[in-house]
């Protein structure tokens, strides 16, 4: 298994580097001159030119890319904001925990509520429980989350006054954002776990188990559930990515001081350096999450386990044969 984990970690490195290259390249073509943005429109042409030289903006693309990659990955320096000159790395570091809490708790809700709902629907298929769950899930994936967020804000903050309308200074402030951010993933997870479970329930070994006269409970928990969970774990990584992207908008709805809010204010100010670094950092966070899911998946799925352990045994067997022959 260590080989598997190691291999996955090695595989992620080129992806992360290429993500940085792609984002840098996309943002390279942004309209507008950073030097002019920094100095403001009042600066003289000479001043702008001097700053451009200093920032290396007159260098060819490949040199700029190289120095950007060097700064980002070797010196771990994400640069400074064009607008107010703050260090992007320290700003992101102070905001990261808020965004991570939002994204992670959304994921936990998906697992704790979404999966059981889907499984419940599958085991009661075509009954009213199934229909109710799937109707709710369908609404969940059809309604824009920021709109739901605003509606809940109107009801619970403005009309009833139970929850604060912005910020996360108390635990009450977290309730709405977490709920709203998890909504889409929750619904997706419920739908997926239902179809995954249905697929397993239809398979032959479940019929065999029934034929053996095992109790439905035992069939469900010991036979069907483990196999239906395997494909679901695989989707967890991408759902984390979705809730990470979702935080950008949700933080904006509830005025939460996370990375998303930082990004949106940078978009308003055309602060390209901030946008570039933020997108890269969030993408790396997403890749790491995918890696963790994959590794966890390797431990859960006996097929992957067997593949790697079997391979080790094969190698050992070959070695032994060689030694014997010698």
């Amino acid at each position: 298994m260590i080989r598997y984990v190691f291999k996955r970690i090695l595989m992620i490195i080129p992806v992360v580097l290429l993500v940085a290259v792609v984002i840098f390249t996309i943002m390279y073509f942004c309209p507008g001159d950073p030097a002019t943005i920094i100095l403001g429109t009042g600066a003289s042409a000479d001043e702008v030119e001097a700053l451009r030289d200093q920032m290396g903006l007159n260098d060819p693309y490949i040199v700029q890319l190289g120095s950007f990659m060097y700064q980002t990955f070797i010196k771990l320096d994400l640069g400074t904001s064009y607008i107010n000159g703050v260090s992007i790395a320290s700003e992101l570091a102070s905001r990261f925990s808020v965004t991570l809490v939002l994204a992670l708790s959304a994921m936990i809700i998906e697992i704790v509520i979404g999966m059981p709902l889907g499984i419940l629907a599958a085991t009661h298929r075509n009954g009213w429980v199934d229909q109710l769950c799937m109707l709710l899930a369908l609404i969940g994936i059809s309604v824009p989350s920021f709109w739901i967020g605003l509606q809940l804000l109107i009801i619970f903050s403005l009309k009833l006054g139970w929850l604060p309308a912005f910020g996360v200074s108390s635990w009450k402030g977290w309730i709405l954002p977490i709920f709203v951010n998890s909504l889409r993933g929750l619904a997706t997870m419920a739908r997926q776990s239902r179809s995954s479970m249905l697929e397993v329930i239809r398979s032959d070994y479940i019929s065999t188990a029934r034929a053996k006269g095992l109790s439905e409970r035992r069939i469900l928990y010991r036979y069907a559930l483990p196999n239906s969970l395997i494909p679901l774990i695989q989707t967890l990584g991408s759902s984390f990515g979705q809730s990470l992207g979702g935080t950008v908008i949700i933080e904006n709805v509830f005025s939460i001081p996370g990375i998303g809010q930082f990004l949106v204010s940078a978009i308003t100010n055309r602060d390209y350096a901030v946008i570039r670094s933020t997108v890269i950092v969030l993408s790396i966070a997403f890749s790491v999450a995918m890696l963790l899911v994959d590794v966890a998946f390797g431990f859960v799925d006996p097929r992957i386990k067997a593949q790697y352990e079997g391979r080790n045994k094969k190698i050992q067997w070959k070695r032994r044969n060689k030694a014997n022959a010698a």
Partner: protein
Amino acid sequence: MLLSTDSVAGAPVYTGEPKFKKQGQLKETMQRLMKNKLAVAGMVMILIYILLAIFAPLLTPYNYAELHLSEKNQSMSSAHWCGTDDFGRDILTRLLYATRYSLGLGIGAVLIGLLVGIILGCLAGYYGGVVEEVIMRFCDVMQAIPGTLLAIAISMVLGSGFINTIIALGIGRIPINCRMIRAQFLSQRKLEYVEAAQATNCSKVNLMFRHILPNTISPLIVTTTMGVGGTIMMAAGLSFINLGVQAPTPEWGAMISAAREYIRNYPYQIIFPGIFMAIFVLSLNLFGDGLRDALDPKLKD
């Protein structure tokens, strides 16, 4: 296929050509689809929305962009069924016109993703080797960036506007389609009919697009239908953070975003665009679910 063993017993000889069989499949799929009440309801709603978008100018006496500051922020009335916004524009009128733009955004972006995704997926699936490796690694990298963020980065470069937003949203869909087509190609590549086509000296382009592609399309139909809804929601999200379509162009997300300032006093300005949009996306999803069940009846219990 031309001769069946039944012909000996005098039963009708099955001389159906592939085309005939395909029509049969289509008919069967349609029949299954029509039995699904929710899917039909979704389809009817989608048609209604399309008609609303086309005939918007006939349905409303107002203009979607004209300002009437004397009538601003009016509540619902017989003159303005959904009230007016902060510039005195009729909200229902704007919703109707917005259907044009939102639909255009959703369909346009999905088509871009489909077109490029299919071409790349075909190349990767057919040629394999280095071509496949390069294309698939490209997909890996594109998918390592969360969709919302990729759309944000691209629309920063292209600027806001209708066409630019379509492109920004479409690029994010390329890897999804590409992966799917490639997986389908891999399963088809070794089948006999491909070999037969190769034996008849069929050109590669012909083989890829006329022989294999039609056999790989059905899983794509469902993702595409659902994708339109997802893209419309993502476009609304972009408008919400001041990217995407710009005022005065009516778009559901932009309308919600603009009404946010008046959330305390005029909540209806937010409620109507949201409901209008949600019903449309819901119809698309109902239709998509129905299509999936109809195309692959095994999946249904």
